């Protein structure tokens, strides 16, 4: 539990809430997280966009994205508060560190494979060199 985890947190704010109010809300969330010992690595206001379906009879909403690093305790706290907040239509937190690690691993493996490919070519050229030597030996 002590290990660091990375989460992606998205929440949708009521479209009638003003932009600076949304900012304040986001800052409030960040404060809770830092207060609980987590840290914010990225914040992004995705702006107002149309919802794919109505939530609480609202057709659009303001999306806010946060990237949080922490143990998971602060996520529980923030989600508890979001549940109570009427301005927040929907929230979702996703743990991303594991998926990212896997993606990095795949990328690594591919890079190593790519590095191996020229190596293969080299050994081939070495073989050619060897052949050339042989030819020379025969010539002499």
């Amino acid at each position, binding site marked *: 539990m002590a290990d660091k985890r990375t989460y992606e947190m*998205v929440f*949708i704010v009521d479209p009638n809430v003003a932009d600076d109010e949304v900012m304040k809300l986001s800052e409030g969330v960040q404060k809770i997280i830092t207060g609980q010992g987590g840290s914010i690595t990225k914040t992004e206001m*995705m702006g107002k966009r149309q*919802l*794919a*379906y109505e*939530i609480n009879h609202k057709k659009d*909403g303001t*999306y806010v*994205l946060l990237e949080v690093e922490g143990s998971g305790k602060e996520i529980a706290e923030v989600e508890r508060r979001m549940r109570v907040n009427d301005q927040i239509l*929907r*929230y*979702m937190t*996703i743990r991303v560190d594991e*998926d*990212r690690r*896997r*993606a*990095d691993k*795949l*990328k690594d493996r*591919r890079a190593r494979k790519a590095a191996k490919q020229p190596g293969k070519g080299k050994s081939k050229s070495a073989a050619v060199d060897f052949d050339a030597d042989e030819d020379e030996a025969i010539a002499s």
Partner: protein
Amino acid sequence: MSSNYEDRDLGFEQYDRTMPRGPRRLQRRKICRFCIEKVDLIDFKDVKLLQGYVPERGKILPRRISGVCAAHQRMLAEAIKRARNIALLPYAAD
């Protein structure tokens, strides 16, 4: 009853490559575009990408049609479901 059997034969014919009988649709080899582009992670926020895999009805496009490989289809399905949860994609569209 005889018509029933004919139906079944037609079904088998799709799998039987040795006897191409009757008008068969030309099947192109399907390839996974995520494998070609070397995608390791499909982000649920990439609505433009995901929309290509949810036809009008809002359902997830099956792999047998899109040609996406199993590993990437799994990632894709997960991303689509996440996008649905936060109203980036519809659960069902009429």
